[in-house]
């Protein structure tokens, strides 16, 4: 429809509010309380414009643009004198209490309040009284609190409570003494608290880990990155200065993470700066272990040409690195570095998604679901951002129902919240233990994995009678199945979510069967399966056998050199098996970024790049391939991407050295040919030689300071900027200044928009896709001719066995990351290891709450753990905190013995 803004006619989309319309049209209009993901509440009064009745109306009426819907032919003015004066006045009001501490404020230079102040033109303050002061609170190791800077936009509480479902941050007191904080000092409990630093338009809530090594935004070298800490693959911006990773920022991707990140993703970056990093190549058992690259090459060449070479891949290494290893050792000698149990599950997931009979769902689509069924996965802890998406689905379903009921636009947040009140959309969580997400669930049920699978199959059977060859479902189970089935049937966009974390293939099959049974003509069902690592999907798609097979092979054939890629084998495999493997190998070559149990076994250790000092591609659980880019320039150390090491070794081995530089593009092209399942992967991002008008895209903002001084202690001449040549991004501040292609946006900035809010300048419309489409490439395609695939594999009910306990993992949103545990702040928030069992189980063990128990599996004794009684864990099952050092290599999903 058409609207007139300052006497110019524009076309806008119906249903939007005036503020969204203006921002979409690239017109600058200041705002605070409105947030694209949270809608309007009309609190800050900053976005006032004049609206006129018709062309004869000269007087007009001041309205808040975030509160008015666009209507055909609407006339409004941004430039109107009264409107401008009012907007200036609002800033002056806010400034009455805002301290003038920009120079010492962490937000300075990336501050929405600064930007908006400049935008309104307000400069002279007429207020000459004392400002009010507050006491700040300790909010934990992640978020810093400085209440004096608050401008009371209420975004923090709206985000924390309404959007993310937290309850320990609130607004207190009234009038010009409103306080945002906790009831008393203490750690913020939500695993999504880090977003407060981006939601807050000024410096009240800031990133405390950045404070440890603070750098202004304009002084950061930034590159687009992809989160490493779970299988969801949120888009991030990695930011560097002085060779150190300084912070992670959200990188908007309309299909994946939108505006937010979880705390593990945002704060888990410190491993890159860790003292435990491997920076030097080593040849062990020499007098001088440190080796130069040429020594290494020579040494390794002899090792890999002497004997059979076995490659152990990794679910946390990039596709390029895994493929380079596959090329080096040959397809038949390449193995996934994970247990057979996990590899089996991953293969199953790939098979399901490749079948094309259900839609592999993105986070954005989960947010839009009108019914969600979760079977067997504690997504709050294994894929936190997915849990946040499910929360939005549940809340939005109720909101959209309410908005249809009395014709109120969905963005009118406060009104919608009043209308929806406690109403929630349908969510059923069928999991092995309680999870915070149960709070918003319509149905929650906790049982052993096989019983969860049985309920899943019962639902599928209820949805499409006859498709599941019925076994003996109990009345109670059928009743549950009917309740859930009926709710799912009513939905238009149901989503079924499952995951590999309970190590049970029946669970995944059941979830898939429900999705397939739901998938009838008028209904589009979506399916998602959470996996364990950031590239679990990519590795699984390569279709290689598991580590267990490698172990068998080596045991039988002997005499092999193993090349282990970025993988702590001891994390995935029981230590006895891993030891056995290393003992059978003649030589062990390990590439990794951090020292761990596996690197101890290496005779040759090569320093591998992390996501911050290398390029690569990861495939998330949805099947979306996404590229991350190097941000730390590497001029001196030996650290390089594993794929570069491996490719160099390959050229040596094959004598194909031709002096040509090697880029990830080349690897992906070879990969596309060798593995057709990755068709199109070369298009995941612009090629390394991509330029715009001959210019590369700068990783540094044009205000980057000190580049002539940074290395002046070594050489007074300014060095040539580092250039890795792997991507269209340059390590300088010069280059193309316009909007880059969406996949290679190193930072969000626009004239007058220095804060994260500048993302609206990169979007096609507010809250929409990035210009040119959201980055990432979906590798699984829906097939319209796909035949319905039913697994129809109903397991027997779970039976409690005497003295044998089903061992299952209990993840923690902050504590369970192998790499994120190197962030001191997250480490302190990680739970101490413990086991939990039902009181019935404890009685059977003759133990009580708080006793120390020891898990014994196939002769391996694990360290003893305190046990907690948990009524929601079913009899016969023992849950153990997973992802911690103490529970590494446990055989999840198998029956173990427990000693008191």
């Amino acid at each position: 429809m058409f609207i007139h803004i300052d006497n110019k006619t524009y076309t806008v989309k119906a249903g939007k509010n005036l503020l969204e319309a203006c921002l979409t049209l690239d017109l600058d209009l200041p705002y605070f309380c409105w947030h694209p993901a949270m809608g309007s509440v009309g609190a800050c009064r900053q976005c006032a414009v004049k609206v006129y009745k018709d062309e004869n109306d000269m007087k007009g009426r001041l309205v808040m643009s975030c509160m008015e819907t666009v209507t055909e032919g609407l006339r409004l003015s941004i430039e109107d004198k009264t409107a401008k004066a009012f907007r200036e006045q609002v800033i002056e009001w806010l400034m009455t209490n805002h301290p003038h501490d920009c120079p010492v404020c962490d937000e300075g230079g990336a501050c929405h309040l600064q930007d908006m102040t400049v935008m309104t033109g307000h400069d002279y303050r007429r207020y000459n009284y004392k400002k009010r002061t507050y006491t700040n609170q300790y909010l934990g190791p992640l978020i810093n609190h400085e209440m004096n800077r608050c401008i009371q936009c209420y975004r923090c509480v709206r985000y924390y409570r309404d959007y993310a479902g937290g309850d320990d941050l609130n607004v207190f007191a009234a009038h010009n003494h409103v306080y945002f904080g906790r009831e008393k000092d203490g750690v913020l409990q939500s695993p999504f608290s880090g977003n407060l630093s981006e939601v807050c338009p000024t410096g009240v809530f800031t990133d405390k880990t950045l404070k440890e090594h603070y750098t202004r935004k304009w002084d950061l070298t930034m590159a687009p990155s992809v989160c490493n800490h779970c299988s969801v693959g949120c888009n991030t911006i990695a930011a560097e200065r002085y060779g150190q990773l300084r912070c992670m920022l959200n990188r908007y991707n309309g299909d994946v993470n939108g505006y937010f990140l979880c705390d593990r993703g945002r704060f888990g970056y410190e491993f890159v700066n860790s003292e435990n990093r491997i920076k030097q190549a080593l040849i062990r058992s020499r007098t001088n272990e440190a080796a130069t690259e040429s020594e290494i090459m020579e040494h390794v060449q002899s090792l890999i040409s002497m004997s059979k070479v076995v490659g152990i891949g990794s679910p946390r290494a990039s596709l390029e690195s895994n493929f380079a290893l596959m090329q080096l050792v040959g397809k038949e000698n390449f193995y996934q570095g994970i247990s057979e149990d996990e590899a089996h599950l991953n293969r199953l997931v790939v098979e399901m998604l490749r079948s094309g009979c259900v839609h592999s769902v993105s986070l954005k689509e989960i947010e839009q679901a009108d019914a969600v069924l979760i079977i067997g996965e504690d997504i709050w802890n294994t894929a936190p951002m997915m849990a946040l998406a499910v929360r939005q689905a549940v809340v939005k379903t109720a909101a959209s129902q309410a908005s249809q009921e009395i014709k109120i636009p969905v963005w009118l947040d406060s009104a919608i919240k009043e209308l929806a009140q406690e109403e929630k959309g349908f969510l059923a969580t069928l999991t092995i233990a309680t999870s915070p997400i149960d709070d918003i669930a319509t149905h929650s049920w906790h049982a052993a994995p096989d019983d969860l699978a049985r309920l899943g199959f019962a639902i599928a059977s209820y949805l499409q009678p006859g498709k599941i060859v019925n076994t003996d479902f109990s009345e109670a189970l059928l009743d549950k199945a009917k309740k859930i089935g009926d709710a799912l049937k009513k939905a238009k966009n149901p989503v079924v979510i499952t995951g590999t974390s309970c190590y049970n293939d029946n669970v995944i099959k059941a979830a898939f069967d429900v999705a397939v049974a739901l998938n009838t003509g008028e209904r589009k069902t979506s399916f998602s399966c959470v996996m364990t690592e950031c590239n679990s999907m990519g590795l699984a798609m390569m279709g290689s056998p598991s580590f267990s097979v490698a172990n068998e092979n080596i045991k039988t054939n002997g005499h092999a050199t193993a090349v282990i890629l970025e993988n702590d084998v001891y994390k995935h495999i029981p230590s006895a098996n891993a030891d056995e493997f290393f003992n059978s190998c003649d030589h062990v070559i390990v590439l990794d970024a951090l020292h761990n149990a596996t690197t101890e076994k290496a005779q040759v250790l090569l320093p591998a790049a992390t996501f911050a000092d290398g390029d690569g591609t990861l495939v998330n659980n949805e099947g979306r391939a996404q590229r991350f880019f190097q941000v730390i320039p590497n001029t001196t150390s030996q650290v390089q991407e594993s794929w570069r090491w491996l490719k160099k070794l390959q050229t040596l081995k094959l004598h194909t050295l031709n002096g040509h530089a090697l880029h990830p593009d080349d690897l992906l092209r070879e990969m596309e040919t060798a593995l057709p399942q990755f068709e199109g992967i070369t298009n995941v991002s612009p090629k390394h030689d991509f330029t715009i008008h001959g210019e590369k895209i700068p990783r540094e903002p044009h205000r980057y300071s000190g580049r002539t001084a940074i290395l002046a202690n070594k050489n007074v001449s300014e060095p040539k900027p580092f250039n890795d040549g792997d991507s269209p991004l340059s390590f300088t501040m010069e280059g193309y200044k316009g909007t880059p292609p969406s996949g290679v946006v190193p930072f969000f900035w626009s004239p007058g928009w220095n804060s994260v809010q500048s993302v609206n300048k990169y979007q096609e419309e507010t809250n929409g896709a990035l210009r040119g489409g959201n980055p990432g490439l979906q590798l699984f395609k829906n097939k319209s001719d796909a035949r319905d695939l039913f697994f129809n594999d109903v397991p027997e009910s779970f039976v409690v066995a005497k003295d044998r306990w089903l061992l299952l993992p209990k993840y923690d949103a902050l504590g369970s990351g192998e790499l994120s545990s190197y962030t001191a702040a997250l480490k302190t928030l990680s739970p101490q290891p413990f086991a939990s069992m039902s009181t019935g189980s404890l009685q059977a063990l003759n133990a009580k709450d708080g006793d120390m128990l020891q898990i014994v599996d196939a002769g391996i004794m694990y360290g003893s753990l305190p046990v907690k009684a948990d009524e929601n864990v079913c009899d016969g099952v023992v849950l153990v905190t997973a992802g911690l050092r103490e529970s590494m290599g446990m055989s999840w999903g198998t029956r173990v013995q427990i000693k008191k």
Partner: protein
Amino acid sequence: MGVKLLLDKAHVEGIRYYDVYRREGGYRSVEKALKMSPADIVEEVKKSGLRGRGGAGFPAGMKWSFIAKPEGVPRHLVCNADESEPGTFKDRYLMEFLPHLLIEGLIVASFALGSNATYIYIRGEYAWIPDILEQAINEAKANGWLGKNIQGSGFDCEIYVQRGAGAYICGEETALIESLEGKRGNPRIKPPFPAVKGVWDRPTVVNNVETLAAVVPVINMGGEAYSKIGVGKSTGTKLISACGNINKPGVYEIDMTISVEEFVYSDEYCGGIPNGKRLKACIPGGSSVPILPANLLFKTAKGEQRMMNYESLSDGGFATGSMMGSGGFIVLDEDQCVVKHTLTLARFYRHESCGQCSPCREGTGWMEKILKNIETGKGKMTDIDLLWDIQRKIEGNTICPLGDAAAWPVAAAIRHFRDEFEWHVNNPELCLTQNFGLAHYADAREVVA
């Protein structure tokens, strides 16, 4: 002697108790109403021209007719007893001395609106009144006027008393609803209007105590007859709580045909200004309505006599008129300082701002600080313009009317008493010990001693 409809029995011994109240003709309106259809009751109230007595003066019958009636959704009537405006205490008087009148009105209104659960949201500082109301509710219940199947009509109704926590903002109907739901008392954004989605998402009507009490005479005498009392659109009677520099402060019932002058000087009402002082200014409708200097109080700008009714009090708009508001009639004599008085009000509104939207939250505090400076002789001439500028930008630009309520008194004070502000600035020493006095805006009339 004007017509009295609400307070006619106020001085009967024991009228607070059911037996006396019933003997004096109480609950007749309920008997009558239960025989009528709810739609007819609404029609009677419409005919009566009864306007909301809380301050805005919106026709009550109209408000009732807006209530949505979705199938299977309960509706609620909420009585707004959060009377917290400085100078207004008429509802307190009603509830304290005539609790059964309110209960009676509530039953009739509940029946008309189909509310089976009706709430009285009462100001926290009225600590002793909930007990009085609860006792009256219990008495009414014991006599079959509340509870299940009232008087055999098949209509069920319960009345609950809910204490507020002392926030003025909770007198704003949507903030009241939030508070009633147990939330922070921040006003809601409208739409949705309470008549569609109010308490717990259900259609709700929020009425002032006096409005609901006035339903009783409306039903008893019929809407037609009620509308004949008073003048024009100011029908029926209005309670005025008079205070300040007058001989007889208190709550008076007027029939809106008397003049302001009569109200101030007649012995039947305020009884004139004490100690032979002269009248300087008056706030005729509660602290948020514009203050009027004496010369504009008794005569409108057109030279007509100003009457105590909605139309006449607002004659001349804000430039030369004021508002009926909630009927809090505050009189200032020649010894009063308008700057100090405005500061007191500004302090009140700053303290009562909920803190939700910027203009009110930040503007009220700033105005208070400026006024304080002017009052204590630290003001500058530019401060007066600044004050004017701030209030002008608050007015009409806030989520709820509290912003307006805070801006109007300041605006009116500067509009009518600018020379007094300037005198404060020009005489920083003197203003600490002396008053500006009457100046030219004093009432022309000689003191009636």
